[in-house]
């Protein structure tokens, strides 16, 4: 099992907002390391002058006209909220 020197799993898990147990950190590091080692073969490919595929088929100018439509009733909007106060979603205090 390998681990590329530059996968800082603490840092990446923090960026991804997932708390990992020490066991998960070790296990995932190794498993992801294997995948990254496999992926490394992409470096073999000569991609000079090749455009990245942004979208499978080239389509442009997709938009909608600025006409307001009714949205969700507030009850539907908040139906799945874990916690609410009146008509707002409640969370622990957010400190700037």
């Amino acid at each position, binding site marked *: 099992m390998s681990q590329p020197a530059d996968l800082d799993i603490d840092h990446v898990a923090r960026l991804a*907002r997932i708390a*990992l147990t020490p066991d998960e950190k070790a296990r995932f590091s190794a498993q992801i390391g294997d995948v*990254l080692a496999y992926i490394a073969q992409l470096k073999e490919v000569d991609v000079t002058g090749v455009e990245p595929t942004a979208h499978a088929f080239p389509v442009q100018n*997709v938009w909608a006209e600025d006409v307001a439509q009714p949205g969700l009733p507030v009850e539907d909007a908040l139906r799945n909220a874990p916690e609410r106060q009146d008509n707002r979603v409640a969370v*622990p205090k957010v400190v700037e």
Partner: protein
Amino acid sequence: MNGTGSPALFHQPAGALAGLLEARRISSVELMQAVIGRTRAVEERIHAFNSFDADDALAQARASDERRAAGRARGPLDGIPVGLKDVIAVKGQPLTASSRMLANFVSPYDGTAAVRLKEAGAICWGRLNLDEFAMGSSTENSAFKTTRNPWDQTRVPGGSSGGSAAAVASGEAIVALGSDTGGSIRQPAALCGVVGLKPTYGLVSRYGLIAFASSLDQIGPFARTVEDAAIVLGAIAGHDPLDSTSFRSEPHDYRAELEKRRGPWKLGIPREYFGEGLDPEVGAAVEAAIGHYRKIGCEIRPVSLPHTKYAVGAYYIIATAECSSNLARYDGVRYGHRSEAATDIVDLYFQSRAEGFGPEVKRRIILGTYVLSSGYYDAYYLCAQKVRTLIRRDFLEAFREVDAIVTPTSPTAAFKRGEKAADPLAMYLNDIYTIGVNLAGLPGISIPCGFTKEKLPIGLQLIGRPFDEAGLLAVARAYERDHDWNARHPEL
């Protein structure tokens, strides 16, 4: 089997059932009751469903019968039970992605696929199991239950749409919708001996599909026959103003075109798909199928897709990068699992996501976050998107010479539960034949083409030109017409 010797209602294809409904030989309520009965009989062995609401389904069936009685039947899907992978939003129904993160989530809106099914009069039937957030190839990553392969319950049905494939194979749904990002319709279709179609990227709206990899995901049908797949595709395909990636294609009556197009065609066999790792029995069945096409007058040509071996690598950079961003919204704030262990707002994110996501989802989010993180974007994501261009070019080059490409769908038949679960990379390599099709945005279909000695289904994959589903379905039909694999059912 019922008393008259014809297959039980729940085993019949939608095309035939539409005829029976139209002729008033059966009612939709009867059909729905037969499907519910079958589900209740086999579900504890198959575990295809996360949930189903029999009362609601029967109410939909009654509504269909009333429409028909009033002369307002809407077409071949009116009154037909369609199972839905639990990633497709149906208003008022659970939408869980087989994840603890969404275990209690009820969708307040209908996705476009649901809207179109309802417009067609179809019955939205149940919530079908999947690998959590569509990440997996065996449905073993579901947080709720492990679906069994109806042909051998010690084996997996494939994934991620394992529940959808199993339900159609076992008669718990007449047809079903799944989603395919790297093979998640085609591979389980192959392992469960049914038809599974991934449309061209952009043909079917993604509005209402829980996003995994935005540039790769497509909704598509599971069915027993190619005609059924054509019927369902016809109902859900077409431009959607709510999906900016949805293509303005010409409307097609896929079912009508099916019998009109008879070939013969030029079929390409990519050398890269028949090498190491392919199970010999699967290889033999696919060779036999190719032989059949030759017999009916098709020209068989070798083609080369030289960048095939980079497909899995490119996929796991692009798909994980996109999913790391798509799954950021699952944080327990507005909906979803909120951790009770959280001490403050920051903790709320870390703990809710730690508790809500399973290990495979976490792995992919972390890998995706890593490849997008500062300093790595060019080396990974940008590079993979360029390799993707080359993969697509390979296919389009081949399509200058041939009308469709023929390959195995999966390197092996269904494997045992637990056999590959411990090694993520080994699991990823299951998708080796299907993944390139998603990267290139092409349509692909898997149809049954035989069984192994152990009586496990084998799937044949056909890959078509962009937006040429009509042509692709016709090529598939040409094989199916002369074979009766779909007359066999698992013994349950």
